[in-house]
């Protein structure tokens, strides 16, 4: 007979309005065991974690801790039940001293200090304000705080993402040692090397339900990738658009060795006019920083960026816009004036040029706007407020407005997130039409299928570096997924 599991969750479900985030998630962890929780973007991983740590309430399913049913109604309740999480972002209050932070969470000081030393932090001043400590130290303090609470279940959610390598080693060793001494660990990470080093089993989520549970052994990566992808996806055929179709000549954008913060280390690529270049990456691999640099939200720490052959360094979004780079955020709320009409939103980029005062050339622009509205197939509601449109139609407006304005370089950050299939099918031709007009399009996507449906090529980023460049015609889900997880490919076309 197997001993009773410390944590036993089954049939966990959660809906957000019309969207089902989790339909049937399960996870069993025994004392002394390290289990990796895995799943592709959007599989429901973070929802599941939030439920287990009390940040969200589940709609259905049971969670047993030491064999007794538990509701886990809040983070505090989860803590009392012995489930202690460590998140990707630091959880210490920045304006309080370390000592006050410990007091706030009822963490005993001596065990905490023991763990900080164990984790490689020799001198720590408890009277220091948390916000003044370096990021890597804060991550370690979070872990030390979690360990000092003597958890039954330690939940590590992408906690190594912002750590330098030597500290990662230290963390893995300490966690393994703790597991061997009888605590249960749930480990969430995109990094197969860490999982292979640390974990006993992997539990895999796909589309909101748990599809399998496999022991970690050499070569198991392939099976996990397979489970994360499922079988349905392999059937979708790549669009026939080969390398020969790519426009030759000087690139519009030439990025070399771009680096920023801890996530983006070294990214280089060329983007040509008329081309749609996909960017594929798991969450937090540096793609946010890359788009922030290109959009002028932050400067690069290292590396160079050339626009039409001239080196550029953007200090402000206005610099990027002046250089012809147009950023369309994944969150539509950041791109549109929700309370204004579709017509006005389309006209805005036309009329909002700085340095142009006086009356707007009404007639010429009205024609352009009308043409764009017709193209978007939402003409009957063009007088209505944008916020009354569906999410998909809103996204059509954020991209389609550039048809009227004309655009040189378009930066799309996950433009189809949370949009229905039919509208997605209308967005891809819009993007292609912009490219055919001569726009260079950089297209970050969290859905592998879109590389084939919308892009010419894709660069795959892992741990802040480009690991592969794949032609759309060759971009099978498996190949993209393996590259995104930093696994070697036999084709090796990088």
């Amino acid at each position, binding site marked *: 007979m197997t001993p009773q599991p410390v944590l036993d969750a089954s049939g966990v479900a959660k809906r957000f309005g019309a969207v089902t985030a989790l339909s049937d998630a399960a996870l069993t962890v025994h004392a002394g065991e390290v289990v990796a929780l895995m799943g592709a973007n959007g599989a429901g991983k973070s929802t599941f974690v939030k439920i287990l740590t009390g*940040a969200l309430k589940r709609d259905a399913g049971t969670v047993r801790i030491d064999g007794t049913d538990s509701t886990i109604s*809040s*983070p*505090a309740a989860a*803590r009392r039940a012995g489930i202690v*999480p460590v*998140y990707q972002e*630091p*959880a*210490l*209050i*920045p*304006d*309080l001293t370390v000592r*006050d*932070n410990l*007091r*706030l*969470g*009822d963490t005993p000081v001596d065990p905490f200090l023991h763990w900080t030393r164990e984790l490689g932090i020799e001198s720590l001043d408890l*009277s220091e304000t948390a916000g003044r400590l370096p990021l890597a130290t804060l991550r370690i303090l979070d872990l030390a705080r979690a360990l000092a609470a003597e958890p039954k279940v330690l939940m590590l959610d992408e906690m190594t993402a912002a750590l330098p390598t030597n500290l990662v080693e230290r963390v893995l060793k300490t966690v393994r040692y703790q597991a061997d001494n009888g605590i249960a660990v749930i480990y969430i990470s995109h990094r197969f090397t860490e999982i292979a080093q640390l974990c006993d089993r992997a539990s895999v989520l796909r589309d909101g339900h748990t599809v399998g549970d496999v022991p970690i052994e050499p070569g198991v990566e392939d099976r996990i990738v397979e489970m994360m992808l499922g079988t349905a996806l392999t059937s979708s055929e790549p669009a026939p658009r080969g390398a020969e179709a790519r426009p030759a000549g000087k690139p519009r954008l030439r990025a070399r060795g771009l680096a920023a913060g801890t996530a983006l280390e070294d990214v280089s690529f060329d983007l040509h006019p008329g081309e749609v270049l996909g960017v594929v990456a798991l969450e937090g691999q540096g793609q946010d920083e890359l788009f922030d640099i290109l959009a002028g939200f932050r400067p690069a720490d290292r590396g160079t960026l050339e626009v039409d052959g001239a080196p550029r360094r953007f200090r402000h979004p206005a610099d990027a816009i002046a250089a012809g780079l147009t950023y369309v955020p994944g969150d539509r709320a950041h791109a549109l004036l929700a309370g204004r009409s579709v017509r006005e939103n389309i006209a805005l980029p036309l009329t909002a040029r700085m340095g142009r005062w006086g009356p707007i050339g009404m007639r010429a622009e009205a024609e352009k706007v009308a043409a764009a509205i017709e193209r978007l197939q939402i003409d009957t509601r063009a007088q209505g407020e944008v916020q009354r449109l569906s999410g998909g139609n809103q996204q059509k407006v954020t991209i389609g407005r550039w048809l009227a304005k004309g655009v040189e370089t378009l930066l799309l950050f996950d433009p189809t997130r949370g949009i229905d299939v039919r509208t997605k099918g209308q967005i891809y031709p819009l993007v292609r039409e912009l490219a055919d007009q001569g726009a260079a399009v950089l297209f970050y996507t969290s859905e592998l299928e879109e590389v084939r449906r919308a892009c010419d090529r894709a660069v795959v980023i892992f741990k802040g570096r480009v690991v592969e460049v794949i032609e759309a015609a060759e971009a099978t889900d498996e190949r993209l997924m393996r590259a995104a997880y930093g696994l070697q490919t036999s084709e090796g076309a990088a």
Partner: protein
Amino acid sequence: MIRVLRNQAWVLGLVGLLFALALVTKAIQPTYSASGFESLARAALPFAFATAGMAVAILVGGIDLSVASMMAVASVTAAVLMEGAGVGTSIGVVFLVLGIGLAMGAINGALIVVTKVPDIVVTLAMLYVWEGVALLILNAPGGQVAPWLQQLIRGSVLPWVPNALILAVVGVAIVWVPIRRSKLGLAIYAVGSDPLAAYRSGVNIAGTRIAAYAICGLFSAMGGLTLAMSTGIGEPIPGPYLLAAVAAAVLGGVVLGGGIGGLVGPLLAVLILRLVRQDLTLASVDPNVTTIVEGTIMVGVVMLGGILALRSRRS
């Protein structure tokens, strides 16, 4: 020691500013004496409590625009109930009024937490609600505060140490010191600093915010009581305490947006702002010009605080 200096730099700066202003006062009015300071402290007393309340609301990450109206409710309640009452009754009334203050603040906080409407909007609405309540209780200045309470804030125990000053310090300390040292105090700073991190640390966010607003209400009631004690009657129309309290809290080092600051700085700032006003009067500046100068200083201080808050958020 260096850290103490760094963390208390703002407060030390305020002490310096206060001394500089004292020298200016002496220069303008060489005969300025302890009795001048005594009347200054008495005038500053309601401002001190209003500022302490406002500071707590700002520390938790909000703001309470209804401070002056809650003071009015406290002042008329005290004046009406104490009229012709004995010492025992008036002591009971004091505690009743403090309880009403706690309740009004808790209602403000609960409305903010339950409706999820921004603090500034809820408390703007409550400003009118509490003002209406005050007018229902007493529709024109009137009533009478127990004479022994009126005497309590007059005079000085030592020269330059007026009773009013002692009452302000003791009143604020009695409420704030135990809270600041408890889990609740930490939670107030944590919620004002980073609500998500606080939530993940197991802090009860809703409860903490309601408690902070209740403390703000309690301080407002103390402000209303001391106001009635210094005038002797109840006054249903709110006085000029709202913007003055925000200005003093910000000048005192409480960062708009929450999480940073204390109550010592704001109390010093109240004295500074009152002293500036007194100096302008002593220098026989036109009273209308005094009002303009005072308003300009307040707007300047609040604006500066806003800019500093933006800076610290960005870095």
